[in-house]
């Protein structure tokens, strides 16, 4: 952005930042052991790799434990109100497309109170990154069930078990034509780093769901597939162009059988060539949707990048309309505008 002829923000020169540059002086106030710590650390590690000047990052959040995140990242930050972060971010990004804008949200924040904004930011393909910390619970309000909590879940507000059917954030994102959809796990730091990096590099909306353990109100929600001993057998990492293979012994895979996915064991006549090859860049999100619906125990839980396609972004289209108006009508002249329409002179 130009301000009085001066450029705000670095433009030239090498940006050389370190993880430590993104740490603030604010005491981090999550419960000891909370999965949020790991996501924070991985984000702070990812940011310097993007070679974007620190002052050009804006972290926007809603309300929830997860939404405290911006206070801990040394860049520009906006801790909004419950559910509205995507809309706040829309204002920031639409006004200033050159900024790298991140939305940090929770499962309640994004999918309950903020469902509407979540949906619309995605379908507009705004060039921002949305990271949803899914702990399948309302953390900050001390443990009520959330839109991603499993059916029948007993919480303080559902002593007899929840009668709400859960939704899958990835499916919501895909149904709204997200151009980038990824998923990772708080404890799988390397994987988390690669998914965040890819999300950051994607132009357009990037949606990343992170399974995050809330060790106070929903401890172990993902343990059955995230614990080291089971992780390779119960999760599958999607990589573009590669066959869907998983398991400690790399002996299992996913095959498309008619219109259904199925788990197969390699051997006995089944080879790698029978497996589905992941195509993250397919313009049709149908397969990505099917993959997103895979869940343990029938399937391994899929992580990685499900879908990544190019499409003009909302902020660039908006800017283009401004530029187009200027070239068609010339830069606005206030004097002329005020006197437009029929005028008359009183002597």
């Amino acid at each position, binding site marked *: 952005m130009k301000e009085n002829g001066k450029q705000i923000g670095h433009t030239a020169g090498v940006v050389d930042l370190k993880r430590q540059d993104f740490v603030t002086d604010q005491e981090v106030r999550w419960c000891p052991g909370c999965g949020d710590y790991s996501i924070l650390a991985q984000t702070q590690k990812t940011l310097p790799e993007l070679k974007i000047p620190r002052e050009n990052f804006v972290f926007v959040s809603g309300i929830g434990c997860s939404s405290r995140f911006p206070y801990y990242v040394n860049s520009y930050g906006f801790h909004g109100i419950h559910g509205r972060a995507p809309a706040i971010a829309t204002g920031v990004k*639409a006004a200033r497309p050159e900024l790298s804008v991140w939305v940090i949200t929770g499962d309640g924040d994004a999918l309950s109170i903020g469902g509407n904004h979540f949906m619309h930011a995605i379908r507009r393909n705004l060039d921002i990154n949305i990271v949803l910390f899914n702990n399948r619970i309302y953390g900050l309000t001390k443990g009520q069930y959330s839109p991603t909590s499993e059916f029948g879940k007993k919480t303080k507000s559902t002593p007899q078990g929840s009668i709400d059917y859960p939704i899958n954030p990835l499916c919501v994102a895909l149904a709204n034509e997200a151009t980038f959809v990824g998923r990772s796990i708080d404890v799988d730091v390397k994987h988390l780093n690669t998914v965040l990096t890819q999300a950051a590099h994607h132009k357009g909306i990037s949606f990343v769901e992170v399974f995050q353990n809330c060790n106070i109100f929903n401890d172990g929600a993902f343990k059955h597939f995230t614990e080291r001993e089971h992780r390779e057998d119960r999760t599958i990492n999607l990589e573009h162009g590669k066959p869907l293979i998983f398991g400690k012994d790399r002996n299992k895979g996913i095959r498309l059988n008619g219109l259904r996915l199925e788990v197969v064991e390699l051997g006995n006549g089944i080879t790698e060539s029978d497996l589905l090859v992941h195509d993250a860049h397919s313009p049709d999100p149908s397969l990505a949707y099917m993959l997103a619906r895979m869940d343990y125990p029938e399937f391994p839980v899929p992580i990685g990048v499900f879908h990544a396609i190019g499409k003009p972004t909302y902020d660039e289209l908006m800017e283009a309309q401004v530029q187009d108006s200027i070239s068609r009508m010339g830069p606005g002249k206030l004097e002329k505008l005020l006197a437009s329409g029929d005028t008359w002179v009183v002597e």
Partner: protein
Amino acid sequence: MQSIETEPRKGLIEIENVTIRFAGDSGDGMQLTGMQFTNTSAILGNDISTLPDFPAEIRAPAGSLPGVSGFQINFSSRDIRTPGDGPNVLVAMNPAALKVNLGDLEKSGILIVNSDAFSDLNLKKAGYEKNPLEDGSLSAYRLISIPLTDLNLNALKDLGLSKKEADRCKNFFALGMMYWLYDRPLEPTLNWIESKFQKNPTILEANVRALRAGYNYADTTELFTTHYRVRKASLAPGKYRNITGNEATALGFIAASQVAKRPLFYASYPITPASDILHELSRHKNFGIKTFQAEDEIAAMTAAIGASFAGHLGLTGTSGPGVALKSEAIGLAVMTELPVVIANIQRGGPSTGLPTKTEQADLLQAMFGRNGECPVPVLAPATPADCFAMAFEAFRIAVTFMTPVFYLSDGYLGNGSEPWKLPRVEDLPNIDIQFRTDPEGFHPYLRDEATLARPWAVPGTPGLEHRIGGLEKQHITGNVSYNPDNHEFMVRLRAEKVARIANFIPEVKVFGKPEGKVLVVGWGGSYGAITSAVEAMQERGKSVSSVHLRHLNPFPKNLGEVLSGFETILVPELNLGQLLWLLRARYLVDALGFNKIKGHPFKISELVSKLEELV
């Protein structure tokens, strides 16, 4: 296009002031007819004031009472301030329009009706048992009954239009008659037809013919014996245009953006009667304006906040129901101390209320409709043209004090119009925005001593990285703080910041003597009616003065003193007494309310009778 010169074969009588109401079915094009008459009268140099009145339904059943749409225009050779208490002339295109509007027509007023529309079916739909054109019930008026449908169809018969298409032009036939009756030129409307229907020569020709046929019919028929001339008004010298309040509002915001040299970001969710502002602003993107049609009002408000955080002029516009949705986010703007303007074009409430009718019942919502101690400055324009100045003023205050600002217009101001003397751009007040760029000694909540504004430090500025949000802020550092003393301090500080705006706004001017018997205190769109009523009382030698508030929070500094100079204080409002409530609470004065909640503006006569009662 050649002009039609009529020999004054019939009497031409000069009059000062006329109020006409065009009324018909929503499909009859009454709004367009009214606007054309308005525009022509404005160009002719009359002072004008208009009052469109349309149903909430786009097309209620044809011929039904709820489907009646009306447009009232008052035009004059004098200075006028209102669209007129009631019409002197009513043009009724069908029985329903007659039924709905007749009560407002002055006794012995001119009543022009389309007799072709008075079929049994239409009479029944309007609830007439007998045809009022035949039963003598209209004898108190100068009834001029014209087979307008047939005359119009006849005039267009060889154009090859379907009957339906041809019939659509009958409003221009009526307009042509009115142009003759009030001695107006056809050119402005002919020009409009030319540019509007460029691509459709047959329709163009049809409208031109209908207009001329109406004019000529009035000229030749024996039904009209005289016509009338309303001379130019003696307005202050300058260049003028006719403008509606909503247009003026949009232009005021654009002007603020131009003067402040910061781009405007308008986020809005469509709602009557505010949508015109969205439509208007989205046509002017060459001013660097970005318009965002949000998914709801909450998104509109928060996106405007985001844009403001990013250094743009964040703006959102809506009506009362939308403000209700924005409330939590307005609190966020108060807490983060970001400049955002919230334009509320008020309509009848509560809830969905009366979408197309006017009311002033959102003042207390603007003042108090949020959780916590949450002060927001409130401004209100007084006339359609004043919308320009006050929209501009809203941004001046927002960026000077780093605060959200409420701009309270209403449906009457927004849709009504009047001549606007174009301001000179170089005379507009200055809006000086200095972003903070120096990291030395920077704190997000360190304040300017005079205004108590915090610095505007926008993303992209190296060294000023900081985090803000809705949690309570520590004084100066802006860090999250739950400290009890700090909280009380900050609550008082935010209140003080808004209170201090009183030092930067004009004092109220008393219309009339500064002391006396009755002071009328008004706000918003009732300016015209109040001022005219007070003027009438003054002409009768009565001790009545008035003040009109354009700044409602904080109040102008001298208001308390002005109030103390009068025995009786009367506060007319289109609500149950909201400004009244504020004045009584603030100044401990025993003020009286005069309240009307009918979806219509005050009539001058209503106010005059009330004042007569008081003095």
